[in-house]
């Protein structure tokens, strides 16, 4: 069975379950795995967050829950139709479509929650159910050929901004490649710098421009190139708590998406970004840590995803020096420095560990 058939069957069984309860004289209930913080657990083996086994119940006999069941079933029918017709819709469209329903959504927030309820209840990603995020994925540049339907695309021949990862990345097939590693960078400024300085050639790499916090499609793409093509992934971000965390969400997934981390996290990806040690060793231009930065760094120290010695040492060092630095600050030494000097040194250190 392909993903599509699985989705349709799971949706149908949700309806079945309700009808069976009614026929058995029972009050129908839907068990929805809990997404509360206490049910989000860090899985040591899988190296990312997963949902625990606690769940909430939506009972048809509960005046507060019955409306949610109605919304959930309507949404399920809508998704079944999308998947059957091989279409997608945004959450915004789902919200507007509900106008015609007998139990519509009061606001976007409410429809988002019901969409997520459906994801966790069925154990499917929203993409599997045809619900696409609006956000665009990252830009990719380098010797990689993919197929979307009947079209082949070469990410070295897609223009200076490269190949753009679309939300439907799971329908994309990897056809061919000639690279040895993936280097993802936080900003498009750095992406263009790497393209301009021909880093893709110099390091036999796919360059990925994350555009800040990585979209779901980007994380799925990175996981797939890592697992399907066996490429090591390096994430090259700013030296501040946000840069660290953008990398860590790619590596170990987020708590909020614990129910789909197994499809999104790339536990073997490595952080190659600016560290507190780099700040000292390369004498980088810095900004002082703001209160919020300090707070965030201290939170990271308690986060199970940062339990490696590497992180502990670097976070503590950053707190000690009280400074942060951006990737682009290497241009203090000239525009080419980051590709000519910094990245080779870092790559060598990491790959020869």
């Amino acid at each position: 069975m392909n993903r599509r058939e699985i989705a349709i069957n799971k949706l149908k069984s949700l309806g079945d379950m309700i009808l069976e309860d009614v026929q058995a004289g029972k009050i129908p209930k839907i068990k929805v795995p809990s997404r509360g913080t206490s049910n989000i657990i860090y899985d040591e083996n899988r190296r990312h967050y997963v949902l625990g086994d606690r769940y909430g119940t939506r009972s048809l006999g509960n005046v507060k829950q019955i409306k949610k069941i109605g919304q959930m079933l309507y949404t399920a029918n809508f998704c079944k139709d999308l998947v059957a017709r091989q279409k997608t819709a945004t959450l915004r469209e789902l919200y507007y479509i509900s106008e015609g329903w007998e139990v519509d959504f009061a606001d976007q927030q409410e429809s988002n929650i019901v969409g997520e309820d459906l994801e966790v209840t069925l154990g499917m990603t929203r993409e599997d159910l045809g619900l696409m995020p609006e956000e665009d994925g990252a830009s990719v540049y380098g010797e990689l050929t993919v197929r979307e339907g009947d079209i082949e695309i070469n990410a070295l021949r897609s223009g200076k901004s490269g190949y753009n990862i679309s939300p439907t990345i799971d329908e994309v097939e990897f056809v061919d490649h000639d690279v040895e590693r993936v280097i993802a960078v936080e900003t498009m400024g750095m992406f263009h710098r790497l393209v301009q300085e021909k880093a893709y050639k110099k390091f036999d790499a796919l360059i990925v421009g994350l555009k800040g916090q990585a979209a779901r499609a980007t994380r799925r793409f990175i996981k797939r190139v890592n697992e399907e093509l066996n490429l090591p992934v390096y994430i090259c971000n700013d030296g501040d708590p946000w840069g660290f965390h953008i990398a860590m969400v790619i590596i170990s997934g987020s708590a909020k998406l614990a129910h789909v981390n197994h499809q999104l996290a790339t536990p073997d990806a490595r952080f190659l970004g600016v560290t507190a040690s780099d700040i000292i060793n390369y004498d980088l231009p810095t900004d002082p840590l703001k209160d919020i930065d300090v707070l965030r760094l201290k939170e990271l120290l308690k986060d199970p995803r940062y339990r490696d010695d590497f992180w502990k040492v670097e976070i503590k060092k950053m707190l000690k020096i009280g400074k942060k630095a951006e990737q682009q600050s290497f241009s203090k030494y000239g525009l080419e420095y980051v590709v000519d000097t910094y990245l080779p040194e870092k790559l060598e250190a990491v790959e020869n560990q």
Partner: protein
Amino acid sequence: MARQALDLFDEGFQELTPSEFFRKNKQMLGFSGKIRSLTIVFHELITNSFDAAEEAGILPEIKIDLKRVGKDHYILRHQDNGPGIPEKYIPKVFCTMFAGSKFRNIQSRGQQGLGCSGCVLLSQMTTGKPVKVISGTRENGELRGVKMSLKMDVKKNQGLILEREDVEVEGTGVCIELHFKDVSYSLSEQGAYEYIRRTMIANPHAKIVFNDPAGNRYVFNRASDIVPPLPKEVLPHPWGVTADDLIFMAKHTEKRRFRSMLTSNLSRMSAKKVKELEELTGIDLNKRPKDMKWEEAERIVEAFKKMNFMAPPTSGLIPIGEDQIEKGMREILDPEFTATVTRKPKTYRGGIAFIVEAGIAYGGNSGRLVGDQRKAEIMRFANRVPLTFDAGSCAITEGIKSLDWKRYGIRDLESTPLTIFVNVVSTNVPYLSTGKQSIAPEPEILHEIRQATMIVARKLQKYLRKKKAAKEEAQRARVFETYVPVIIKQAALLAEREAPDYRELLDKVTRRAKLEILGESLNE
């Protein structure tokens, strides 16, 4: 060139009478601001009438007429049904400052000695008019009436009788007529009308008929027929006296020995305690009171602090009482719901007894009308007297505001149609300022105010909860009737099957919901 002292003093030295002094310093009597001045006048006169009637065992009934005769110019007629004032005392009561009932350690409504004569001084200063008094008294069973017109001789601090005649009266009581300028009648929270309204809530045994300057007649009827018991004089507790108090006592006592003075002038002071005191201080308490030295008095006060005494007697404290407060609130506010509580006596500063009472009224005319919306109002009282000024710093305001009203089902205290009533009863209310308009936040008093308010708030919460539950039941049934058919239809569409009969299910969930609201256990 330096001048000689004697010349300077002979030229420029003088003594003033209290009347002369206050003529120059009327703000010290509370007369500052036009609205406040008139409210103070109402306060002094009503308080005096209540005290007089109650002391004589009469249910108070007051008739007040306020006429406006020009801008900021009024004539006030105030008539009570008290025992009246004997003729020879009339000039003193109205025209001598510092004359009045004796200072005693007693729960009392007002200031002593400044009340009526202060009002007369203000009247005379602003209008030059004499005060007219009719007093009806009963002497040996016979009713006597006298009418007088008086001026205050400020230089002598005494009354000057301008006219006098015998008159027929229908009963005992005092009727006085005063002219005022530079005062102003107002319906605001600080004004005279609100003062009367609040007074009536705290004194449901009284009746007031008030004719206001606009021609409105307000009748505040008696809600109770019980004259409150007279507060008794309570001897000071040893923990509450100062060395100066002991010396003052010693100077004016008729006792021959210091030890007998102590036992008869202080409460909880037994012969055994005197002995204990003697041992602790080493002072011979057999000596004559006049021989007591200041240093010895100080040592005695120090020793008191180290000794154990029973808590002060509370027989002197007369609260309004839960029933009476409720009657007052029902009469004046016509509320949907009320709850009241009178707490047990407690003490503050080691030895001063007090009682806190609280009431809450919801709906009806409760709360203060702002625009067309009713908002919460706090009515503060000390010994049944409304406190109208300086609300911000008062222990009552502080205590009520510091509660977490959300815990009592009141999301936004400000905009709830609520009247919260608190009365603090004590022989010695700790006022914050000269004006006696706010109570100091002594920790024990604050605690009691919070406790009392919490009790009535909890009762209100129960009432509001019940009211809400009834409303919810109907709503819930509607929800199920709407959603169950929709859900079955959608489930059938999803499963691609026929929709089953769901009538039984609908019955079940609707019944279940009803039980839930009633809080009964569900046996499935």
